[in-house]
Structures are given as structure tokens and as C-alpha cells.
């Protein structure tokens, strides 16, 4: 009988981003040769993670509970809601900003050309939150792409209907950016959203 398990393991490791057949083979052999315990722990955790992790019923981020720890945290300001695209974005905001409100994670963007509509990114749930919660501000933290713009403008309309104040992350000159090398679109944005000093 051929060594089908090794082949299968190598093939399945290829589902990871950036892992091709050669890296997959190296990983498989490493686990088999040097770290069987680690491999078993990885297999067990992976199995339970895939089985138990779902979406938070309030913010849609990944969690094994019904409501994630961030949504349950009484220290966070429930009157400010930040709409983010991915859990990775949320992690970046948590790491680098002092934002202390709640999040709503879209897990995507409105993109009609990819067949992604408002339902697929959970806007029906966001609509309910806009209606049922006493929000002071909705912060739109979507990408500066056409899909991010479409999403932001759509949610902004929803927030207007619900009478909630809306803001969007600033777009313009990056820190350390020299103006001469900025592309025209960014420069145009930077001019449009200039701030008064003093």
C-alpha cells in the first residue's frame, strides 16, 4: 500500500496561504520527524477550532461563544460603534489606537461585481443594531477602495435613516509621505479633507 497519509497530509497543508507543495512537504516531515506531540496538539486544536468557532451574534467577529468577549466588556463604550472589514482590521485598531467602543465586523465588502450584496456582509444585523441601540456615533473603517467606498456610503445611508452620527476614517497623506510622490487620487483626497489649524 502506498503512503497515502503522507501524501494527503502534504496536499491538505497546501490549503494554507503561501504554502506550496514544497513547504507543505517540509512541514509534514518536520512534524513526523521532530514534533509529533506538537502535531497532535495542532490537529486537536484545529479540529475543535473548526468545529466550535462561529460568529459573534452581535459583532460577527470570530468567537466560540455566542457573544464575544469584546462585546461583553463593560469597560467599552457601547454608544460608539466602529464598522470594520475583517477581524484582522479589528486587531490592528486594538493594537495601534485607543478606540474603546464596540465593533461590527463585515467580513467583506459590498461588491456587486463579485455577487456580494448587503445581506452577505451582515447589514441586516447592523440595521437591527442601529434601530435597537442608543448609538451616538458610527465610525466607518472601510478600505479606501471602490468596494470600501460603496460599503461606507451604503452604511452611511442606513445610519442616516436611523438618525445616527456618522464618521469615516480620514484618507490622505500617509505619515512620512512626501507629497511629490503621492498619487493624484490620494492628493485630491488630502486636499478635500484638509483640516483647519488653530
Amino acid at each position: 500500500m502506498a503512503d497515502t497519509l503522507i501524501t494527503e497530509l502534504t496536499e491538505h497543508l497546501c490549503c494554507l496561504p503561501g504554502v506550496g507543495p514544497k513547504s507543505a512537504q517540509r512541514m509534514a516531515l518536520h512534524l513526523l520527524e521532530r514534533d509529533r506531540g506538537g502535531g497532535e496538539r495542532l490537529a486537536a486544536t484545529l479540529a475543535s477550532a473548526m468545529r466550535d468557532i462561529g460568529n459573534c451574534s452581535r459583532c460577527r467577529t470570530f468567537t466560540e461563544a455566542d457573544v464575544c468577549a469584546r462585546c461583553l466588556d463593560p469597560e467599552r463604550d457601547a454608544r460608539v460603534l466602529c464598522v470594520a472589514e475583517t477581524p484582522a482590521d479589528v486587531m490592528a485598531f486594538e493594537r495601534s489606537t485607543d478606540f474603546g467602543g464596540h465593533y461590527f465586523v463585515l467580513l467583506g465588502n459590498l461588491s456587486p461585481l463579485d455577487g456580494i450584496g448587503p445581506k452577505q456582509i451582515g447589514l441586516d444585523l447592523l440595521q437591527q443594531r442601529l434601530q435597537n441601540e442608543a448609538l451616538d456615533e458610527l465610525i466607518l473603517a472601510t478600505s479606501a477602495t471602490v468596494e470600501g467606498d460603496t460599503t461606507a456610503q451604503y452604511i452611511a445611508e442606513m445610519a442616516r435613516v436611523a438618525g445616527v452620527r456618522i464618521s469615516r476614517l480620514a484618507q490622505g497623506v500617509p505619515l512620512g509621505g512626501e507629497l511629490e510622490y503621492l498619487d493624484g487620487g490620494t492628493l485630491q483626497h488630502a486636499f478635500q479633507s484638509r483640516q483647519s489649524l488653530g
Partner: protein
Amino acid sequence: MTDLDPSWVLHTRNYRETSLLVDVFGLHGGRYRLIAKGARRGKRNQRALLQPFRGLLMTTRGRGELRTLAAVEDSGASHELQQERLACGLYLNELLLALLPRFEPAPDVFALYGHVVAGLAAQTPPAPSLRAFELTLLETLGLAPDFTVVTRTGEAIHEDGCYAFDAGGIGVAPQGVNCLSVPGSALLALAERDFDTEPRAQRQVLAALLQGPLGSRELRSRQLLAQFRELASRTGPRMAAPEQTYNHEPDTSEERDQ
């Protein structure tokens, strides 16, 4: 293609860790797909350029189905579309992606595309320019009938007459359930490229013609446009200010989805 080809990005999609798959509409290259390697890495800043509704100059490498981006420059025309107009812009892109054959230059459509996108950004009433775009696209695809005669008989269309219309052409009298009943004046106006006469009938005629090659495929940007309008109709006066020209223009594509 070694020269810089004036181009528009129709759609982008992430590919692997740092690359982008880009659907492009070029003046000389027509509609094609390319891969922009490393475009999502900060250094090259190509991601900022490779956005829909930005006029670009592009050079590509390769001859196969999937080309590689060699160089891209800003051509200066950058349009920012808002709300429903953004959905209208996506509609143009979706039409081109769905209908335009690959690698076939369509200079008339290309020229009009730039005007229509600029018009959408400039808050002029969008309906006439959208109709002009649809008609030009149909003409390029060879799908626009002669609007001055009844297709089968060659009999001239009368301004006061009422004609049957379906994907098969213009008939003498309305027949069947899937057949539109269209005033002759709407058809004659289409022949003259006058998009202000009987706008609703013109919109229906062009939509019926476009649905032929689209088959059962539904355009998602139309659905998005309808959803935007539904939301906008529920908002108060705040929406009315920037959209005034649009809302007061009964000939817009408003009923396109109904």
C-alpha cells in the same frame, strides 16, 4: 503591447498574498485581465492607482489570456462617484465585463465611457448618458436594430404609431406577454440618439436588447442601485441637497429595476 495604452480598471480582486487580478478596459487592448504582481505591497503604491473610475496609462507583458502589468501611470482623470452614482458606475463596469468580448478594441465605447463616468461624478442627470452608453455598446456588439423601420417588413416607423418590441426586433403590433409596446416616437428618437424623448420607453427597449446576450444573468449592480434608492427614499431632506438634479429628473434610470 509596449506603448502606454489609455485604460480604465473595471474590477480588481486580490490574488495570493500581495498581487491583484485586474479587469481592464483599454483603448487599444479592449477588455482583458492582467495580474499586477506585488501591487498590494505598500512600496510600489500601485494599489492606489489600480482603482475603477481612474484614467490610467498601462503597459502589459505577455500574450496569453492573463497578461502581466509592466507599468501603470495616472493619466490625470480621477472621478469620485457618490451613492447611487457609484452604483451607476459599477453598472457600466458590470455591463462591459458581461458583454464585451475579450481582446477586441471598442474605441467608441471607450470614448463614451470616459464621458459618462465624468458626467456621473459631475452630478449631471445620469439617465441620458447611461442610455447613450447602452446604445453604443449594443451597436458595437452588432445588436442594435434599425430603429426607423419595422424589422421584418422594412416599413417605416411612424411617430404616432405604437409598435411591438422584443429581442427579435420591432414588430407592427404588440403581441404576446413578453412583448413591449413602444411608441414610435421613442424608437425614432433612439435612432437620432435623442435620449430625452420618452425616456422610460427607451430605457425598456435598451434593457430588453441588453437582456438578450445576458440571458438569465441578473446584473447585481442594478440590484444595488435599487437598494440605494430604497434607502435614499427613506432619508429625509439631508439626501435631497446633493441629489437634487437627479431626483428631479424623471428620466433617470429609476425604474430600471422595477
